């Protein structure tokens, strides 16, 4: 799943460590989220949405070409 966490973080001038502290996760987790190696749980996605004051679907974009149930 694509996401704009890195851009949103950079807009605010936060380091990964600062964002990790705000989300109460490790810096490694923030890095895994930003590089797309890990998709967050719903509670963490909601925490991100609240923190960045954006709806979840504005932060995360589902790549439909990777969805085996997609009819496209």
């Amino acid at each position, binding site marked *: 799943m694509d996401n704009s966490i890195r851009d949103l*973080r950079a807009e605010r*001038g936060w380091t*990964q460590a*600062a964002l990790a502290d705000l989300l109460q996760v490790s810096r490694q987790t923030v890095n895994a989220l930003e590089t797309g190696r890990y998709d967050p749980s719903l509670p963490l996605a909601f925490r991100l949405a609240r923190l960045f004051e954006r709806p979840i679907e504005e932060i995360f974009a589902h790549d439909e070409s990777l969805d085996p149930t997609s009819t496209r």
Partner: protein
Amino acid sequence: MTSDLDTTPSRGDRDRSRAYVRDVVPAMGAHVVVVSAVTLWGHLDGSSPWRFAWALLPVLPAALFVRAVVRFLARSDEYARLVQLTSLAVAFAATMLACVVLGMLAIAGSGLPAVLLPWLAFGAGMLTWGVAAGVVTHR
């Protein structure tokens, strides 16, 4: 803009690392003390029935290590827990495989000293845990 600062651990990371060290260091200290005591006074190669109690004594500090790992997992976030539990599962499979392989080699008369076999399985499990954690983190 922020990339040059991105490798520093967060305050939470440092707190978690310190808490893990606080759990592990007493376990290591207890392990050294108990193993030294067993080596000095246990006489495991003797004939006293107490030698079995001495032989089982290192289980106590080992339990402290297990407690440290469980508490580390409890303090970890969802991604760190996924990495650790995945690598522990791979290490468990590797340990089981090592036990079967070493057991079959022993039956076939490989000549490996019997006292060495469980330690080889232990080493295989620990090594696989570390390697798997690295692979899962960077894949």
